[in-house]
């Protein structure tokens, strides 16, 4: 059977876990082979989908525009996204949006090593759109669900990526569960969720 390149799924992950995903890898030597970051809960991610609050935008470029956006989640974690001339649509969104605003971001994980030797994880956007609170709340629940699924698999299973995460990282997995709980609890404090 012919194998056609298939679109990679967009993982749901809270910012704290994403920013811990500093290990990247490819699965073939081909130049065009997809690049993955390894999530500490034992899953590979070539693309992520994030909905959160865009709190700040800034043109950090020197010669040409290079926009940085900070997207904050319900448990305080922050995603960083960068868009320049090769992501013109996303760059113009970051230029035009006025924070704070709920945004949906689809993009590819990228890592960058700082002068101090730290590895920063960010998102290279494929698209950024302004959305409403309902979309953001739905994302929080979905991301908690996906995170818990990964944690359960991590504790009970032994996939290739779980093995990889166990050997590459030393993060206490339970913090990701706590962050999922924190994110879900934050929905309770909102007016429509308390009416019963």
């Amino acid at each position, binding site marked *: 059977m012919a194998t056609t390149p298939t679109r990679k799924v*967009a993982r749901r992950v809270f910012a704290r876990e994403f920013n811990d995903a500093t290990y990247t890898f490819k699965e073939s030597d081909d130049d065009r082979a997809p690049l993955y970051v390894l999530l500490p809960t034992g899953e590979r991610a070539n693309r992520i*989908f994030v909905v959160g609050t865009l709190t700040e935008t800034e043109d950090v470029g020197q010669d040409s525009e290079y926009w940085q956006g900070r997207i904050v989640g319900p448990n305080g974690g922050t995603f960083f996204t960068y868009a320049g001339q090769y992501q013109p649509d996303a760059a113009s969104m970051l230029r035009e949006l006025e924070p704070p605003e709920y945004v949906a971001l689809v993009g590819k994980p990228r890592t960058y090593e700082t002068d101090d030797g730290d590895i920063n994880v960010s998102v290279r956007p494929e*698209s950024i759109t*302004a959305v409403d609170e309902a979309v953001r709340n739905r994302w929080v629940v979905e991301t908690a669900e996906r995170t818990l699924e990964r944690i359960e698999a991590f504790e009970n299973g032994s996939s290739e990526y779980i093995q990889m995460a166990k050997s590459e990282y030393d993060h206490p997995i339970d913090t990701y*569960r706590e962050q999922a709980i924190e994110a879900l609890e934050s929905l309770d404090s909102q007016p429509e969720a308390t009416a019963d």
Partner: protein
Amino acid sequence: MTETDLRTHAEDIYEQFSDQLDISVEEITERLETLVNEYKVPTSEARRSVINTYLDEAGMDRDDIMGGGNERKVVSDVDRAEEWIDLKAKVVDLWEARSDAVAQVGLLGDETGTIKFTKWSKSDLPTLEEGKVYELRNVVTDEYQGRYSVKLNRTTTIEELDEELEVGDDEVAIEGALVDIQSGSGLIKRCPEEGCTHVLQNGRCPEHGEPEEDGEFDLRIKGVIDDGNQVHEVIFNREMTESLTGITLEKAQEMAMDALDTSVVAEEMHDRVLGRYYTVTGPTLGRYVLANEVEEPGMPDHEAVLIKARSI
């Protein structure tokens, strides 16, 4: 295929015709061997061909013999290519044949689902009519990118049945975020050639080249719905695109006219729907889900997730 297997087939055939014809098991085995070993015909087809020859010689109908046919299958059972099977199915849909080699192409259905069929021009078979139920004998299965189809060929027999057949629902329901709108979405032009549904790209139809008349405007979204575990490509036709985006074909044409550019429509659609959650139901076609219904899902039960989170 071993000699013994062929001999077993030959013995079966011998049983069926020994009353009518003066034949021997050796003679039948030889015929089967020629077809299978020299002409590389699949055994089931060889068996069929040999049976047909003897049916002719004996002046009998296929119905006169028992058990000489293929395995009778229902649509959902088709899970291998190159199997010779019999099907009772209704013609659910007829599509435009893209090639002269194809007489008819479309969708057959039974209680268990639907499957694509192709009828070759050179097979010289009667025309199938939409909505009618047929007994199709000796069709061969095929597979392309994980999807199965059946081919009606020269040896296929088609019998129209005077009965109704409830066609099973192979619709899928998917829910997730719309994470991408692919190129070829928005305000598009279709080839004006009679019966052609190709989308013009830079004013050209892949089949008819640059048409003399202007193409016909249409709306479409080829999108990607992603739930974090699975990815589905979805096609929203004009009606679905209009209800999804709130942009009618008329409005889209106005927008394009004002901007002197059709791409403003797709851009506006991006802003309105990308990154939102949808529930889409519809049949699948190849790798696409064809949206028949689109809804915005309600809020999921976060309390249940919270209980789970605390328990693991």
